[in-house]
């Protein structure tokens, strides 16, 4: 219903005209899709193993102990070694490895000493390794995925809560609006960082990483939805007094229908221009939290954790901070371009010139 609106279609075509924003958007979507399959891009597990006539796809399957491929150990096969072994044997067995042959958690010290090693094509660490000899490129890929999806989930939740409460406040007004405003004023004054620290000090450490990430997300959403309500509230207030709303009400439309069907689409344009910037805020927040050590639990790959490592070994391993910083800059710039383009295309003053 929203897309079919001719007004919206005009906005979309305007957005497409702004090439910088549009291509940034496409690149971002590309990154998002690509990182959804990062197990195929960077992994210590092979994409494909052909062993004695059988084909194995270890990437998404259960782990294969070394014994499955004629090795003598019961733990996870080292596919890089397996590949070399098969090549040396020349018996027709082969291994197809992903482009980056390391997973983000493994320590792969080149000379048996855990220290950062500089980028090198020869040993397969294209962006070098971090302080415990983990592959930086691999950690960046996985870290970016987590950051992006985290930011999207965050934005979605914040908007959902913000829109519902903001619309309700604007539509019902009166005492409901008054009370909720006071509540939001109090709520938004609770320092968010302290809450994260407090909550994480009581969260049992035994919880799986995914649960901890969900808790972090909930805490962040819990303390970030408030600012959205202001915009929604004013928008709804304005739209509510328009004739078409009165018309709908006289025709007997229900409150839900009026809010979501009539008011929301008209109030939406302001909100949409904020979306990219919320995503940026979320990525910055999660990175900052990781940097401070209150974010994603280690050893989860994350941009903030890499930045932290990078700053602590600025002299000895500048490539860590360069890679992490570079990635962050690229992603944030892309999103900013998208954001500017959206703002431009939703601008009612159509004749402003976009440079």
């Amino acid at each position, binding site marked *: 219903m929203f897309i079919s609106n001719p007004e919206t279609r005009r906005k979309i075509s305007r957005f497409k005209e702004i090439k910088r924003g549009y291509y940034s958007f496409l690149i971002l979507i590309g990154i998002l899709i690509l990182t959804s399959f990062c197990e195929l891009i960077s992994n210590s597990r092979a994409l494909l193993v052909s062993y004695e006539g059988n084909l194995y796809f270890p990437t998404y399957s259960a*782990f294969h102990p070394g014994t499955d491929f004629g090795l003598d*150990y019961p733990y996870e096969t080292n596919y890089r070694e397996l590949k070399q072994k098969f090549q040396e044997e020349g018996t027709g067995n082969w291994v197809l490895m992903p482009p980056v042959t390391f997973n983000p958690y493994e*320590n792969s010290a080149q000379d048996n*000493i*855990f*220290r950062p090693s500089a980028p090198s094509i020869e040993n397969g660490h294209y962006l070098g390794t971090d302080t*415990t000899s983990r592959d930086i490129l691999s950690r960046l890929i996985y870290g970016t995925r987590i950051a992006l999806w985290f930011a999207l989930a965050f934005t979605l939740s914040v908007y959902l809560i913000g829109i519902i409460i903001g619309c309700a406040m604007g539509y019902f007004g009166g005492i409901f609006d008054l009370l909720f405003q006071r509540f939001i004023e109090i709520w938004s004054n609770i320092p968010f960082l302290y809450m994260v620290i407090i909550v994480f000090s009581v969260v049992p*450490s035994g919880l799986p990483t995914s649960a901890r990430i969900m808790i972090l997300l909930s805490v962040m959403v819990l303390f970030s939805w408030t600012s959205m309500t202001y915009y929604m509230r004013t928008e709804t207030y304005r739209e509510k007094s328009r004739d078409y709303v009165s018309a709908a009400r006289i025709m007997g439309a229900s409150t839900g229908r009026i809010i979501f069907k009539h008011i929301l689409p008209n109030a939406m344009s302001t909100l949409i221009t904020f979306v990219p910037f919320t995503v940026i805020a979320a990525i910055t927040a999660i990175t900052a939290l990781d940097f401070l050590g209150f974010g994603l639990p*280690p050893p989860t790959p994350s941009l903030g954790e890499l930045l932290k490592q990078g700053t602590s070994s600025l002299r000895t391993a500048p490539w860590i901070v360069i890679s992490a910083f570079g990635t962050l800059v690229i992603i944030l710039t892309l999103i900013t371009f998208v954001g500017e383009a959206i703002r431009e295309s939703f601008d009612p003053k159509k004749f402003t010139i976009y440079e």
Partner: protein
Amino acid sequence: MRNNEVMTKIICFAFAIFLAITGCSRLEDENSKSEAIDNTEEVDNYYLERPEFFSFKTLEDLPADLKWTSGDDLSEIGSEKAKKGGTEYRRLQDFPRTLRTVGPDSNGSFRPLLNDYVTISLAGTHPDEFDFYPGLATSWAIDRDSKTVFVRLDPNAYWSDRHPVTTEDFFFMFFFYQSEYIVAPWYNNWYGTQYSNITRYDDHTFSISVPTDKPDMASRILGLRPVPRHYYYDLADNFTEYYQWKFPPTTSAYTLDTEKDLQKGRSIKLRRNQDWWAKEKKHFRYRFNADTISFNVIRDSSKYFETFRRGEIDLFDLTLSEDWYEKLPNDAPEVLKGYIQKTVFYNQHPRPTYGLWINTNQKFLDNKSIRVGIQHASNWKLVIENFFRGDYQRMQTSSDGYGEFSNKNIRSREFNLDKAQAAFSDAGFKKRGSDGILINEEGDRLSFTVSTGYERFKDILTILKEEAAKAGLELIIETLDGTAGWKKVQEKKHEIHFLAFAVGLEMYPRFWETYHSENAFDKAFLDDGNLNPNRKVKTQTNNLELLAIPEMDRMINSYRGSSDKDEMIELAHKMTQLHHDHASFVPGFIQPSYRLGHWRWLRFPDHFNYKHSRSSTQLFVHWIDEEMREETLEAKRENKSFPARVRVFDQFAENP
């Protein structure tokens, strides 16, 4: 208009509440200060009620045939080149949570600088010759038959507030440490059971007895440090709060003015007492040289390093290989130009117990097979080779470094996947799940949390984790900040915790603190000797493994009661063996040396330090050369250089 009225009312009401709250707290504050408590009567009665512990005699009662020694002939400590003066800049990782040296939260890393390293005991252990040199006592006589040490106090010894140190302060020391006011069960126990009598002969002569003639009886007594009687007249239930940020009179060379020198959360300054009573004494005159020691809180290690490299901190412990080899390599410009000197010093000291402390009260970890499996799944060899670049050694038992008291037949379990698998499968973990982690028939995964408060060592845990996964064991790493980590183990909430206890220079290891069931549970055993199913975990003790074995308790009790050195050695060996068999502690690594980088104006004696020193600054034999500081900073500005100095002092190196 009406709204305004309502608002005004609300504001007035809120203001009234605010006034009431602040008013109350001020009232309470005044109460606790002004209530003049005088415990003279209480303390005197305490002595009188325990005539067997507190005796009063006269000089005529002093046995005549005592052999008095004074330790005056022991060599001086420190260098005669040492200069007094200057300011030494050091770093604090965390601001201390209290200035008390007993009671809750007092056992932090700043405590040695308030007590252990700086205050003066009756006699000190000479860091080279392992014999006693005089401290507060000028002479002493050891009578093994009566298990008593007789002491003559230095008549010139006085507290930092000019009150003389007298026998009374040692009487009060027992009252203080035995009292419930200080909320320190360890002290209550130690001072209540490890000493049996103190006898006063006159203001400067007294004797202290111990219940058993332990081989190190003399050091137990001569190592005592008095508590200022004249200061604690108001000792009461509010001790822990009232004295939280008070600095009591001290016998140390360094004092602290809590008004001026304490910036909470940020910095602490210790100032040298120009009028220190021991400043001319033979074993102290070349020590405690800096006029001011300024400690600044720098939490982040990398920031600490950069601050050091700028010359704003005088010294940096290059313990980690990464720091020694990469951050400050021998060819770093500051080192090449001789501004910063690097030093390795091989010492002889019981080693801090770095290892994995397994909480045997947790699900699955109460199973010995699992613990044995964890031992075999911990690849310390790789940690030492890869993380410490082979500079460290594997620890064999939790009581290494005590000479004949250490059981040298025990070897820590090696990393061995087959043995680990066998042990885990004994415990029912036979199958590997889809992620390679073992599961049992109920579907439980073999997964534990390893927590630590040592941020600098978190990479060690990453290595252990990766290696353990090969054995089908999952370790979840939890890195906490120092205080939070310590709190976690003190509350016994850990599954596996990585930490080390600093160990004092003692003749033989202690077992009671870490392995006695009394420190694990309230009522650990039923009357028939079986484990009490309703036992309650005891918090705030050092039995981190929650180890409770009746046989261990029996041996610890006889060990504590024994006066026969051979018997104690045998018991120590047996206990170490039992502890090894119990497999609840995974021995990690030991550092055979300490190493540091320091600016050239922070100077050390020619032989650098002493055989039994724990760290470079523990004995305070270093000094600050302010002229050299000027010279160095100027040279740095003008890009001049001095000869580079990277030194290894291995005169006391022990064979691995």
